[in-house]
């Protein structure tokens, strides 16, 4: 029987954000925006959802008088991502 895929991760933009954060120590909002090609508004909403389920942390500060948002994956997010990939593999039988 197939395991249900994590609905939080099974959304294109949220999955893209988590894939990026799995690969780097931390990334600024602008970096994630550039890599995903998403709009700032949509990206903010999805980052907020991931933050609510504690899959990532968001640190807000200032750099050269401009607001700076830095995202970092949490151990809970890492575990959820790894489980998602495992479940995905069992779906695709790879």
């Amino acid at each position, binding site marked *: 029987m197939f395991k249900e*895929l994590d609905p939080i991760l*099974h*959304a*294109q933009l949220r*999955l*893209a954000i988590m*894939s*990026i954060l*799995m*690969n*780097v*120590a*931390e*990334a*600024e909002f*602008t*970096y994630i925006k*550039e*890599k*995903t090609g998403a709009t700032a508004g949509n990206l903010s909403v999805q980052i907020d959802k991931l933050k609510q389920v504690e899959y990532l942390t968001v640190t807000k500060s200032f*750099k050269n008088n401009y607001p700076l948002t830095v995202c970092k994956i949490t151990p809970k997010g890492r575990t959820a991502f790894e489980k998602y*990939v495992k479940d*995905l593999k069992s*779906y*695709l039988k790879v």
Partner: protein
Amino acid sequence: MNEKEALLVIEQMINSTKEDIKDNGFYYYMWGWLVFIAAISNAIILHFNLLEVHSLPWIILMPLGGIITFFVSKREKQPSVKTYVSESMGIVVKAFSISLFIICFAMPLGQQWKAFYPTIMIIYAIWLFVSGGMLKFKPLQYGGILNWLLAIVGFVWASTQIHLLLIAMGVIGGFIIPGHLLKSKTNKSV
């Protein structure tokens, strides 16, 4: 989004964040030239007994290097992502700087001059070997090996003037040449 599309999203994002650590070599050749000039002028001052404070070139050039490093690093564009390699590199830079700082201040305090320069060469060698590995740039690692070999010579042959010449040779092979090679590599890839 179906399962195949999900896999594709993961693959695309992983590929787009693949690490491509670059270094234009500036700090390597800038510090290399400063140390080279300081070592050679110190050796000349010692040989001809020109000044009482024979370490004067170091006193002038090392703080100058610090000032240049400070202003150049302030002008550099900060990256919008911190990769695991760049994070590790930052830790190694800290460990290298602290070790060098301790040697440069604690050893002269205890008048430990005999092994002063070879010890610095050992620290240089560690830095060059590790950073060369992280940047996947062999000339830096060869520079590290050269500094280890020169340090052995220095530990056996305990003469300050010889040590100064050894450190000058060490920075040519370890910092100046690899630094300029990194610079030309960066210029070619732009």
